[in-house]
């Protein structure tokens, strides 16, 4: 299952950690082609006709699930949805039992969103005949979010090598941050993280990531600022990560004056959504000239079409010229 240079020949997409620069570049190139398709009057192609895609979303998600669903339907796949509340996992059935039962119905792809890290890896290991696409597992990875972030950055600033991306917020509990870090580092970008020390996990230096305590040092020179969502539940379960969202916002929240004071004029601001306006972002910043948040959402569909197309062997089967001459 090792990746081949210039292509993508994997059965599953579990994360960006183990992908080569060539594989990521290829995924982005193919996604770029699908972007064009999404601008057409007729947005549906017959590519995955007759293929079955199961959305197994065991954790709430609206945006990611919708994006995957649109992607699958535009490729003409049949889609089936199982959400946390309707699944048997709430009746004590294990993830693996649920997945094995689904796999017995011969879907081609299971798209899994799961609150436990390693959930997608577990299915990929146990279900050899079904492609598994990770739509977010615990704090581990969210590879399609990572890819859409990369595509948005590439389209906005032209490339990665030597560019600086600052990721601000709850790095510790963020799969979005991890996927972004793996992808950006593989493609040669410089990555900084910034947030309260209680939310910066250990070992980031081994990934070549620089940790900053304050926006004052994290912002200068950055080409991209990626703000992460601050989850209320971090305050609730006795984690003691920070005293209040008010204080968090004051120190690590982003606003126009901090941007104008410390950041480059042409910096872009990203956010994986949904935005807590007034916590990590000043309310109007999401709609400002700096923001590329809606581009991220737009690119999400193209990236997910590329992923579905490629894991089902769009190019695993399709390697070179064979067009009926």
């Amino acid at each position, binding site marked *: 299952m090792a990746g081949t240079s210039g292509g993508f020949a994997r059965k599953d997409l579990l994360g960006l950690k183990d992908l080569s620069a060539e594989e990521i570049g290829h995924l982005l190139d193919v996604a770029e082609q699908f972007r064009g398709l999404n601008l057409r009057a007729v947005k549906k192609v017959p590519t995955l006709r007759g293929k079955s895609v199961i959305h197994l979303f065991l954790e709430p998600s609206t945006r990611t699930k919708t994006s995957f669903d649109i992607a699958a339907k535009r490729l003409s796949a049949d889609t089936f949805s199982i959400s946390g509340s309707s699944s048997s996992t709430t009746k004590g059935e*294990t993830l693996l039992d649920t997945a094995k039962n689904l796999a017995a119905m011969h879907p081609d792809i299971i798209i899994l969103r799961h609150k436990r*890290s*390693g959930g997608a890896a577990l299915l990929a290991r146990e279900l050899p005949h079904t492609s598994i696409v990770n739509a977010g597992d615990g*704090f581990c990875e969210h590879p399609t979010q990572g890819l859409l972030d990369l595509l948005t950055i590439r389209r906005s600033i032209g490339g990665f090598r030597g560019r600086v991306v600052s990721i601000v917020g709850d790095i510790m509990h963020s799969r979005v941050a991890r996927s972004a870090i793996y992808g950006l580092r593989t493609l040669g970008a410089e990555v900084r993280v910034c947030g309260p020390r209680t939310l910066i*996990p250990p*070992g980031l230096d081994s990934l070549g990531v620089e940790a900053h305590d304050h926006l004052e040092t994290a912002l200068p020179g950055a080409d991209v600022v990626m703000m992460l969502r601050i989850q209320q539940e971090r305050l609730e379960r006795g984690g003691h990560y920070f005293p209040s969202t008010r204080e968090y916002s004051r120190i690590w929240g982003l606003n126009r004056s901090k941007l104008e004071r410390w950041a480059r004029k042409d910096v872009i601001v990203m956010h994986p959504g949904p935005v807590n306006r007034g916590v990590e972002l000043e309310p109007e910043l999401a709609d400002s000239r700096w923001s590329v948040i809606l581009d991220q959402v737009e690119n999400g569909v193209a990236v997910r079409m590329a992923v579905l197309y490629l894991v089902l062997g769009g190019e695993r089967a399709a390697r070179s010229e064979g067009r009926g001459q």
Partner: protein
Amino acid sequence: MSNAIEPTLLQGGRVVDPASGHDGVADILIGADGHIVELAPGLADQCPARTQIVDVSGRLVVPGFVDLHTHLREPGHEYKETVETGSASAVAGGFTTILCMANTNPVNDNGAVTRYIVSQSEACGLARVLPIGALSHGMEGKKLAEIGDMLANGAVAVSDDGLPVMDAHLMRRALEYCAGLGVPVIAHEEDTCLSGGCMNEGRVSTLLGLRGIPDAAEDVLVSRDIILAELTGGHLHVAHVSTAGAVRLIREAQARGVHVTTEVTPHHFTLTDEAVVGYDPDTRMAPPLRSEEARQAVVEGLRDGTICCIATDHAPHSTIEKEVEFELSACGVVGLETAWGLTYRLVQQGELDLMTAVRLLTSGPSQCFGLKTGTLGPGVAADLVVIDLDASTPVEVDEFHSRSRNSPFKGWELPSRIERTLFGGRTVYLWDGAEGRVGAEATAR
């Protein structure tokens, strides 16, 4: 063992007995009462009639191993292990004396449960099973269990292992009470306020997106209990030490004369948190697999004597507990059948010498808890292990004598092979060249 056996002569083996420092070729004559009659070279002429002669030349012969830390799951969780299957697993791994923890269902917090476990063990007759009583009633950490009652019925130590005793006052009283009764308190050192994760906190937990447990969760409680042992004069035995900090704290306390001892598991001296990559639930345990620095610190502790024994923390779990997401999986691994191979692996890697390795599994644990086992000599019960150091053993979990399969070493090839285990002079385990036979099947040969 009441029944008389045939006198047996183990002839020509290399006999290593750390308690006496013996290392040389000798014969061992075992009498009809299952005890050693004599240990010396050239005993063939002095044997009584009808002595069974077993040629063990070229083999290592050592005392039967002693494990201060196992979980046998009976009563209550017999689908994972029973006293009988756990004992079979023990003798297949060379262990003839095993201590079993109290976290059964019902909890072993009174003499009746203790007596039940002992009687189950006597019924199968494979190994010496010595129960460890619960420290607190129901292992709830609230009030002392009836420790004296359990000791009277065969328990040899107390512990709430599996759960830390977070109430410092209760721990103080337990150490004090047990000091008077002359038994150790075994402590599972994990500050639950600090340990809300499922693996070691560090680079790997960050990569895997799993919540980490810092070394400090262990070190903080070890510090507290050393202070309490100093206060009370009790014997504190720290279960499954896993951090460099805890080893250092214990070493310093021992130097001050505090009665604190400790053990380390084969998985903690062999593996690091890198083994968790891939989310194999068989790499989940408490304490978690730590860093390479910690691994080296526990090996150093074995070398310099700070850690007096190797204990398996044999913790059988079925697939129900293990075929789930890493964070949801049960803690623990089986260890009785791989402990010797992993220990000898350290010898082969030059990290331990053979005498020390054998001591850590025999006289080390025995002397630590004042048990009359783990040594060889006239008049001692003939608990013996015969080992082929030149062979190797594949870890085939489906062939385990344990009822459970949760080993992080599945698929490994371990050096040497346990060929024969004798318990009270009787062969209770025999490698017949193709498979390992236990109990009557082994004795018949």
